[in-house]
């Protein structure tokens, strides 16, 4: 248990920002299916009750990296307003990755919470 937590922490610490952004993006795509970059930003903001704001410029490098890693796939399509946009979709590898990221996050939260509660 200790080692697992430690591993989780280390992973989160190392890729803290990137890791949580990945988690948010992957989860968003799981919940919403196909979505373009702007849609992801808006979704994260709304779903977190305006608590989380994704830095918009950082989103695209992350999307590109995840696409290259095979976690998500992308295709150009029309938006409702008739604009062309690049839509992202979760792949099966992405689903696995999401599970892993969620697990790591749970460990982190549990661990941090345990420390906060320690009397």
């Amino acid at each position: 248990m200790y080692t697992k937590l430690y591993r989780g922490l280390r992973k989160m610490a190392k890729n803290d920002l990137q890791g949580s952004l990945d988690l948010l993006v992957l989860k968003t795509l799981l919940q919403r299916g196909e979505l373009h970059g702007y849609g992801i930003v808006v979704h994260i903001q709304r779903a977190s009750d305006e608590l989380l704001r994704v830095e918009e410029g950082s989103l695209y490098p992350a999307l590109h990296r995840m696409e290259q890693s095979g976690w998500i796939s992308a295709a150009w399509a029309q938006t409702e307003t008739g604009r062309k946009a690049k839509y992202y979709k979760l792949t099966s590898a992405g689903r696995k990755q999401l599970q892993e990221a969620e697990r790591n996050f749970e460990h982190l939260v549990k661990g941090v919470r345990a420390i906060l509660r320690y009397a």
Partner: protein
Amino acid sequence: MSLLRRIGNVLSRSKMDREIDAEVQAHIEMRIEDNLAEGMPLEQARRDALIRFGSPTSTKERVTGMDAALTLESVWADIRFACRQLMRNPGFAVTAIVVLALGMGACVTIFAFVDAALIKPLPYSDPSRLVSVFESNTLGPQFHLSYLDYLDFKRLNHVFSSLDVYEGSNLFLTTPAATEHVLGARVSDGLLRTLGVKPVLGRDFYAGEDLPKAPQTVLLSYETWQSRYGGRKDVLGQTVILNSTAYTVVGVLPAEFHFAPVSAAEFWFTLHSPMSEDRGGHGLVGVARLKDGVAAKTASAEIANIMAQLASQYPDADQGRGSTVLPLPEVIVGNLRPILLVLLCGAALLLLIACVNVASLLVLRSESRRREIAVRGALGASHARLLRQFMTEGLLLVAGSTALGIGGATVAMRLMLRLVPAGMLAGMPFLHGMGMNERVSAFATVVALMACAACTLAPALRLYRAGRGLGMQADLSEGSRGSAGTLWRRLGSNLVLVELTAAVVLLSCAGLLGKSFYRLLHTDLGFAPDHLAVLRVAPSKLKYTTDPSIVVLAQRLVERARSLPGVESAGICSEPPLSDGDGSSNFTVAGRPQVGPPPEVTVRQMDPAFSPTVGTRLLRGRLFRDSDDATHPPVMMINKALARRYFAGEDAIGKHIVFVGSKTQKEIVGVLDDIKEGPLDVATKPVLYEPFQQDPWNWFYLVVRTSNAEQSVLPTLKTAVHDVDPTISTFGEETMSERLHNSQAAYLHRASAWLVGGFAAVALLLGVVGLYGVIAYSVSQRTREIGVRMALGAQRGSVYALVMKEAAWITALGIVAGIVCSIGTAMLMRKLLFGTQPWDAPTLAAVAALLGAFALLASFIPARRAASVNPVDALRSD
């Protein structure tokens, strides 16, 4: 494959840039739309969208940067993984790297020589338009021009834009300290312009500077300028004393300039002297530049026409002479081409064997890792990913061996250059500055890429087969046995067959070359070359002006040399044996009607003591006597070749010889067995011998036979000459065995025999190791089968037979294929063989026996292991 796509992304930046731009643009516009929907004014909506997004340029850069980072990361991961895999089995890694490095190093080294001699253009402008012009005579196609013939060629031809002449020259440089023997070149005034070479300092000879009335001027080679004058600019106008004549330095030749026909000439001066201005005196070689659009063949035909015209005009001097026009590069490097090409082919074969060996090692290794591959495949590693990992391993091996091979090649080049005798290296100035230049590097790159292909393709093929569905499951369930085993055995034995065939070819070539070399050194020289030392003696022309004075001096030198400790006998000759065969005259036989032009033969002078000293064999008549001097009737000896050619079926003794242009009849008193003249690998031409006392030469050789080591007598010999007269210049001291072993023919034969021999030894080793690998693998695959056979009563002998039969088949096939190929190869390199036929049976039989013996050994070890299998264990395994 994502790696390829990413590399593609990095390469096709512009397409990707446009896509990112479009995406970012869409994002910003969607934000503006939403802002407008919330009721913002247009301007504010736009500004808010831009501020929220941040810099689109930086975003774009970060997106594209991601590709490079990801690529590096995954390549790095592959490299680390491959390193770990290789480190786990260092024996394999080291073997593979060393084997490949050997092949690559050999190829690159030989190629550097090929490049320096055959590819790198000669340092003249447009060297392919330059030709050499020779006269031909009954002795051969490449003989000298006379000065007057040169002038006529120059005047009458329409095919050359310019024609000039040169000759190599021995000079004596007088410095305040001493008089020193140096090499020079005597040239017509336009030679450098014909070659297209401009001095780096000072001026070229001007037109007319080669006439007798022009002042005596000299150009220095760059090395001479540097070593004798410290590269000082004020060298221009200085005076140099050469052969007791004062010359003014007018220029310095460029550093990269060389002209092999005059060896390492230090001083370049013009013709001047009227000595050679006689149509019968031949001493010059022509160099010409072809006019635009004129082919060498056309030029050759035109010069032949002019020569025929001259021959009818001046029958005394030119009758029977023809002409030869050859491309200049051919004349300079032509004799090296066959040997270098053979060596390059040998090195290429070695590389082939090395690649095959390493490829089969890699396949064998991937066989033993089948379970690992299957497991990783089952865990989701994609096919491409696995392939990439194997290829990375191959690439790492090749990278390692490339580094080692190129490093080795650089060292080998220097070593081999150092092994070339200095005198010979001076005759091959194009080898200077040989090294890893851009052409050699490009070649090394191609070799490395080919090695990469071999080392990555083999495991890739293996994986491809495994990928066809059945493979992986089978591998998982059965571990290391099954259909793949048979496949590898078949593929493996084919690869080994290639190796063995190549090894046989290399071994046969090495054998044939070695035998040629042996034959060459043991060719009948017509004298005993051991315990002989020679020294060239050049008395000053100013001091010894008359023939009798030279005869007296020669006599005194011989007597002085004879009195030296350890010297058994001493003699005089104009040219010692194993010379280039130059120095010829035309003759007729008195009382015999001359049909056609009078033949031209080599003429040599010797004193009566020369024959006993070197140990010539008298076939008929008598040797020269002390009484054969100026006061007695002129006599001659001839060699066997001359007797056979010009006195066929009659007795030459008592016949009289008359030189063209002279009235004196000289009686033939003896016939000598042929004393080797000219290159060792060319039959001796007809030679006439005159007594030194009747026709003395200003420069001559002192030859001594010693009772102890001949090397030790050289310094005392030199001192002895200076004891007689300190003004005499001496040079060219060497022992006869040095002359023999350092002759170009001997050197080239020796070098090729040793190098190909070395290649062959490595090839044999690799081939046999390859065979061992295949047989050992086959045995390990058949352990259970062998166990069953033994359990059913098979004897150990039959197990031996079972295993060794497999090896014998491959070996026999390899030997047969190899012998057939080697006869073909040897036919192609026939030029390099001396006294040995390409199908020389003893050599081929020895090669077959050698390979057979090694193959037997290689298969005996696994066979013994197979025979000692315990049937119970074998059946229980798994």
